[in-house]
């Protein structure tokens, strides 16, 4: 199985010229005269604004489930919903299942019709001048790395919706087997990556260092392999506690010495493995089990230490922030970090919202990741000493901060002045980062 290509439609670019519908009708019927023959339908939303109805080639397509004759099937090879004229009985139940207007009855041909992406070369996209239509592999990453072996054991005991488990699997897929992994106490070994009672959790050498010594322990290991003339990646998969609290001294020391380590911090803003206690990375106002909410206290009273900025100040060979919602960006940064870690210290800070500890539904992890970035609650950037800081996601049009805070239970109690303080902090922080930007 691989990732599939998709037609994309960007409504803000569409000028409603109708060229796509003409091209589609022509491709499907030989004539552009009858636009009702088009399988892509551009509709007027309001003056000068348009929307589109077309088949989304759903993963769990209701049209397929509703088909009584087996005429509609999900093609596992190319991801399309295939329609079989031979078995279709024209019952129209598929049109009941579709909420996009993607499969519709076409009176002139006497049966339902839907987009088949012209066999992978969609005619509509070719004629779209505005750039509203695209044909992309939305998960090209998956094609690149999906075949790489998942080097963690199946069945790790992370919470449902755990961002960290998702990302450590991605990381090792990319890094490969020539690695030594150090996973200090926290969610990552807690979910069983280092193993449990004699059973292993990974297919690579992996160690349970102290919460305090991940970076120095890896430094000694790496220096030994360098002395032996062997190139082995020394990789830390640490939490924010192991990076910014008790692990900070060894991290700072290793960065200062330019140890050839890739240190990835999975920042879930606290000690989530042990019951959601606050760390220095916990954001201001957050409820945690050690910054509770009551008459006297209303969550964490101090701002989060900004570890990536601190690491940038160490003049590390590479520092970047990343979010699992922008995987291409993440992989690009992982590549750079890996390369940089051959010459010096590389630090990757991954924002890892935690459904269990932050109090949001497990199914929303990726949405929260997205909101976090889009509201400028965190910023995505990377830094190299000879190049400076570069923002990798625009910060100029943030979504309202409230949309992020309101989505998360740990901020439910926030008073307006607390929200205002967070806003001010984020503005100041962004302004400061911008001063480092190229």
């Amino acid at each position: 199985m691989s990732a599939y290509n998709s037609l994309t439609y960007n409504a803000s670019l569409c000028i409603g010229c109708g060229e796509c519908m003409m091209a589609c009708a022509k491709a499907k019927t030989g004539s552009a005269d009858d636009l009702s023959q088009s399988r892509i339908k551009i509709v007027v939303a309001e003056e000068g604004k348009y929307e589109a109805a077309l088949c989304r080639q759903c993963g769990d397509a209701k049209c397929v489930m509703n088909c009584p004759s087996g005429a509609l099937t999900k093609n596992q090879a190319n991801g399309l919903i295939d329609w079989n004229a031979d078995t279709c009985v024209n019952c129209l139940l598929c049109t009941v299942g579709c909420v996009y207007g993607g499969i519709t009855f076409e009176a002139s041909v006497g049966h339902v019709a839907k987009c088949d992406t012209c066999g992978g070369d969609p005619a509509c996209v070719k004629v779209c001048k505005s750039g509203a239509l695209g044909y992309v592999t939305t998960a090209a990453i998956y094609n690149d790395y999906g075949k790489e072996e998942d080097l963690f054991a199946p069945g790790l005991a992370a919470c449902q919706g755990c961002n960290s488990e998702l990302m450590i699997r991605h990381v090792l897929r990319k890094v490969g087997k020539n690695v030594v992994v150090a996973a200090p106490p926290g969610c990552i070994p807690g979910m069983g990556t280092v193993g449990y009672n004699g059973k292993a959790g990974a297919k690579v050498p992996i160690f349970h260092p102290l919460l305090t010594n991940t970076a120095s322990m890896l430094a000694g290991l790496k220096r030994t392999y360098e002395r032996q003339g062997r190139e082995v990646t020394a990789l830390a998969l640490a939490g924010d506690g192991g990076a910014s609290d008790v692990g900070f001294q060894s991290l700072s020391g290793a960065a200062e010495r330019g140890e050839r380590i890739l240190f990835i911090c999975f920042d879930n803003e606290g000690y989530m493995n042990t019951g959601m206690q606050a760390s220095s990375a916990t954001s201001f106002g957050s409820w945690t089990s050690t910054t509770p909410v009551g008459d006297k206290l209303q969550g964490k009273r101090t701002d989060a230490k900004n570890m990536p900025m601190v690491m940038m100040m160490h003049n590390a060979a590479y520092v970047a922030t990343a979010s699992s919602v922008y995987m291409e960006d993440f992989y690009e940064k992982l590549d750079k970090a890996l390369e940089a870690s051959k010459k010096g210290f590389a630090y990757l800070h991954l924002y890892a919202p935690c459904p269990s500890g932050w109090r949001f539904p497990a199914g929303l992890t990726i949405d929260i990741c997205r909101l976090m970035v889009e509201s400028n609650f965190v910023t995505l950037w990377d830094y190299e000493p000879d190049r400076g800081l570069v923002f990798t996601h625009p910060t100029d049009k943030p979504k309202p901060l409230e949309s992020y805070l309101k989505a998360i239970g740990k901020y439910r109690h926030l008073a307006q002045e607390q929200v205002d303080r967070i806003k001010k902090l984020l503005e100041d922080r962004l302004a400061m980062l911008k001063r480092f930007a190229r």
Partner: protein
Amino acid sequence: MTVQTKAKGKIIVVDGNEAAAKGVALARPDVVAVYPITPQSSLVEALSAMIATGELDAELMNVEGEHSVLSALQGAALAGARTYTATSGPGLAFMFEPYIRQPGLRLPMVASLVTRDTLTPQCVWGGHQDAMLVRECGWIHMYCETVQEILDTVIMGYKVAEHPEIMLPVNVNHDGNYLSFGVTSCELPDQAMVDDFLGPKSINWHAALDPERPMSVDPLTGNAGGAGPSMFVRYRKGQTDAMARSLQVICDVHADWAKRTGRAHAPLVEEYRLDDAEIALVTLGSMTGAAKDCCDALRDAGKRVGIIKVKTYRPFPVQAMARALSKVKAVGVVDRSVSYGWNSGPMHHDVLAAMAKSGFVKPCVSFIGGLAGADMTQSHFERAFDIVAKGDVPPGPIWMNEKD
């Protein structure tokens, strides 16, 4: 007792810290991690200098604290490196977290403890309190009496630590101030001889972080049921069994060393003029020199006194101690540290326990002296012999420097 029969190496004039450094260099470690602390600093300075000049081919890690020193060395050892460091007092306390882990990982190494009294009062001078605080962590502890013994024991320490039946870390302890800075001549063993003596490195055959031998090192082990607790017990028992086995290995290694160098350091317990003695003092470390001088003087005066010097303190050599104690009617145990829980010196109750375990009880007086760098002179030991000779055992310790 040091008997020089054949001098193979060249004679050098060094202090204890430099001697330790020379011994380390002869053992050819792969990685040395350093962080300075009084009175250890000149030791790591000497090592750094040797690495700088190329005299020692090792990776030097100048890390930001003792915690990272030992952490880095654990990582190095898991990649197969022979490792070394040295620390003292507060540095050892800061190192405690990785320190207590090293024996459980069964990672062999040698680390010098340049012993120092512990805070508070703020104090930078000699005393055994730092080493005594970590006596139950699973490291082998050997205490040196002389500069030569430091040099020799550092080398022997690797042979003990890396013995396949042992695989444990070894602390070679020498007294801050008196040994660390005391300059004397000693013999520098021949490198080829040391290479042959130590043989090939044997560090991480059992637990490695190596992509060519992927394994999970130190997964969670335990819990209320299932395979965990019994697995944990087997790890622990393996560790204590290895400690027990090490007494014989220490003897064998010392014997081998004596054969090669002519220097026969007592491996566990040294009996000095004990055969016809009526009373004896049990000593540890550099104080033994003054104690032996005192003993000689009293012998000249016709008194039947002797000295029992402890070299290997952990594991405690119960049989060797019992054999020595069996020769006298009463003993005094001179500690350079205190046991807060027993209102005595710590070695005092080790000696009491050794007697109890061996089925006899003799008068045994606790002396505490040499704290915070205080000098332990012949007259201190003369007074101690006097007290033991009287046969009274006071309820608490005798504080030897209280009225100096």
